[in-house]
């Protein structure tokens, strides 16, 4: 599974990244997590709100910090 945590580096993006790490542990799945902080890379992904979450190329969370439990469900 390929996960992208997208955001230009604000506090909320950091929080979402933490929640994603927790969710992976809880779900017990294997995933590669990448933080996309470069503005050009973000817009190339077609994302215009931060923080956002992409799983295997699909945008699943847009413009908010999702809770760990919500991310666990998305990972399953």
């Amino acid at each position: 599974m390929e996960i992208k945590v997208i955001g230009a580096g604000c506090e909320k993006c950091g929080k979402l990244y933490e929640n994603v790490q927790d969710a992976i542990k809880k779900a017990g799945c294997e995933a590669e997590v990448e933080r996309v902080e470069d503005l050009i890379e973000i817009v190339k992904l077609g994302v215009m709100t931060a923080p956002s979450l992409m799983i295997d190329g699909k945008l699943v969370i847009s413009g908010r910090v999702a809770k760990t439990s919500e991310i666990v469900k998305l990972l399953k």
Partner: protein
Amino acid sequence: MNTQLYVLTGFLGSGKTTVLLRLLKELKGHRIGIIQNEFGKLGIDGTILRNDDIEMVEINRGSIFCSCLKLNFVQALAEMAQQDFEYLFVESSGWGDPSNVQEILEAAKIVANKEYDFRGVICFVDAVNFLKQVEDEETTYRQLKHCNLAVITKTDIADEVLIGKVNDKIREINPVCEIIRSENGKMDYSFLKKDLLIYQWAECEETTNSIETKPKSIFLEYDGQVEKEKLHTFLEKIAADVHRVKGFCNLKEIGWTQVDVVGTLIDYKESEVFEKSQLVFISKIGPAVIRNIMSAWETCVGTEMKLKN
């Protein structure tokens, strides 16, 4: 034809809005867009600029160059690019550090699939307060470093010796930008015809704007009227603790008034009517300013007021 884009920078109270208002008069009849980046969450400058001939988008609550808002800025630029304006002026907040403006324009180009005719960054330099500001604030330094044209403002209230010193300091920070003067918002607008990008030398770099470096802003509201002299004493008392105060106040003697405080300068202008009086303070001393505002208001004015974040 692609929209001509100018980015206006300059520290809090350096005269960006004043000059922009004049410039809009100068360009009457042209299709103009404005992106207004107001520091506090209430677009006070936005109210001054609102007018039928121009279209304006406001981005508030921080700097458009900061990681938390730059996506919003990219989006606004991309949307405005579709509207075929002749000119687009971006008025950044006084705290805005435009070091990464090139990166933002590049991102907007990708989103909009359309390019701006980027004409340059214009930095406004307050002749009276600049030398002090540049010592204290990295932002002031960066704004100048990354500009193509520096406009020394308030030259009508600064003496020649001081203006000379300001000029030397600008040259020290930016060896190539063009330098012109403005007096009471009036200046030579021939820069609109010039290629300012030949005065580009600083490379795009990381902005210093972040949540951690964002200064505290606080709002004061009151109903009814207060005496001008009392408000003036209050503003004098608080001036040392703030970078900037601005807003609209209902005063007993003269009615609705636009109030501007920069450094030790306190300025009053007639204004339109509002629902209630409101002032925004941009703190030099963090949240400690709240207590100082409360006690100064109590001592100098004494009527009821509300402070809001």
